[in-house]
């Protein structure tokens, strides 16, 4: 069976009930999707399948003959980051980085489908993804900024909303 991953066609040898996640990581050596739970519960393995954000741990590869899969490797490169990659960098939306690939692909699909910068809408789209580090604040900020089409300065990072520094106090 055939799978196109980030524009490259692959002849897949894994058994049809193997998860797409396993095929990507173990057969094709594409390691950005993470095995965070293999239960469909965390979103660290999310990739795009024919443009839609999907949990790759839940998809038997046998169901995907001819599908086009996009992982973070297909979004952008360090020299040419995609919009959501720029937004996540500028807004410090990644701490340990383990949930980041899945978040980015969900965010990318959201923005591509015309998502707005509304927090409730972003939550509806990304709400199944677990991040244990950030408390989600900066992730939401990043997705909103990408949805608005902000431009991003990579020399610096953005402050969170609602932050005040009152300096030294007696």
């Amino acid at each position: 069976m055939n799978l196109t991953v980030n524009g490259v066609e692959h002849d897949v040898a894994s058994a049809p009930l193997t998860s797409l996640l396993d095929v990507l990581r173990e057969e094709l050596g594409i390691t950005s999707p993470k095995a965070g739970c293999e239960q469909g519960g965390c979103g660290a393995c999310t990739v795009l399948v024919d443009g839609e954000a999907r949990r790759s741990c839940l998809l038997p590869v046998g169901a995907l003959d001819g599908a086009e899969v996009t992982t973070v490797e297909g979004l952008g490169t360090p020299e040419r980051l995609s919009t959501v990659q720029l937004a996540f960098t500028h807004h410090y939306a990644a701490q340990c980085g383990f949930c980041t690939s899945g978040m980015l692909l969900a965010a990318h699909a959201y923005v591509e489908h015309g998502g707005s910068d509304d927090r409730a809408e972003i939550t509806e789209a990304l709400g199944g993804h677990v991040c244990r580090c950030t408390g989600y604040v900066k992730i939401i900020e990043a997705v909103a900024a990408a949805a608005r089409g902000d431009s991003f300065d990579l020399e610096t990072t953005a402050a969170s909303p609602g932050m005040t520094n009152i300096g030294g106090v007696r």
Partner: protein
Amino acid sequence: MTASADVLLPRSPDEAVEAFGDGSDVTVIGGGTIVLPEITYGRLRPTRAIILTAADLAGVKRDGTTVTVGATTPVAELVDLPAPVGPCAANVADGEIRGQATLGGNLCAGEGAGAPRGDLQGALLAVDAVARSAGAGGERTEPLADFLANRRGRLLLDVSFDAPAAGAFVALDRPHTHEYTTMAVSVARRPDGTVRIAVTGAGTHGQRLPSAEAAAGDPAAAGEAALADVAPQDDALASSWYRTKTLPVLVRRALAELKEAS
């Protein structure tokens, strides 16, 4: 385990029915959201599996007021259906899971290890849905409640229901990641004015609440009456005690919402 499984990919409903046969020793995969983790974790080692993705069993059809939903229709495609079905579908897990998970998986899910499964069962029971299925003895169309009681060895093909005159859906709301529904109540008013009430999460699968229905004119009384119809369980999400305390509240709130919607 998975490497040795005989996997079939039927290309039409007929092929699916034929591949399924009498259902013995067959693992059916719709969206994969329930089955794949079981396989990955080594708890399910299929010898024969059918992947239904290409079997042309998906889609929502409307014929007048009758709605027919194919078995492999993703839950996401149900969210615009009339209440209580639409709001119930919107309450399932999260957007990505709803895009993958299917109606059939939701209705045929086995008991969850630590939480209720099959959110849609309650909503579809409340709208008097009928299930069309194949398996030993051929095709069968029956009330959803009967299908749920005897679903082993059946391949669900579709579910139909008449859009209710009004409906409402109320769930306990304790958001967390990949949310499972602790308990939810669906109510629907049929064109003849009678009210159906069903619950998910107060037992191993969705169920009608006939005692509550009999008292539907008085929401508070209906809520209390509902307790006669259930034997709620303890699980990771809530205790039997808590479900017993809150089922009357949910029934009452759902009926109040129904009144507003009517």
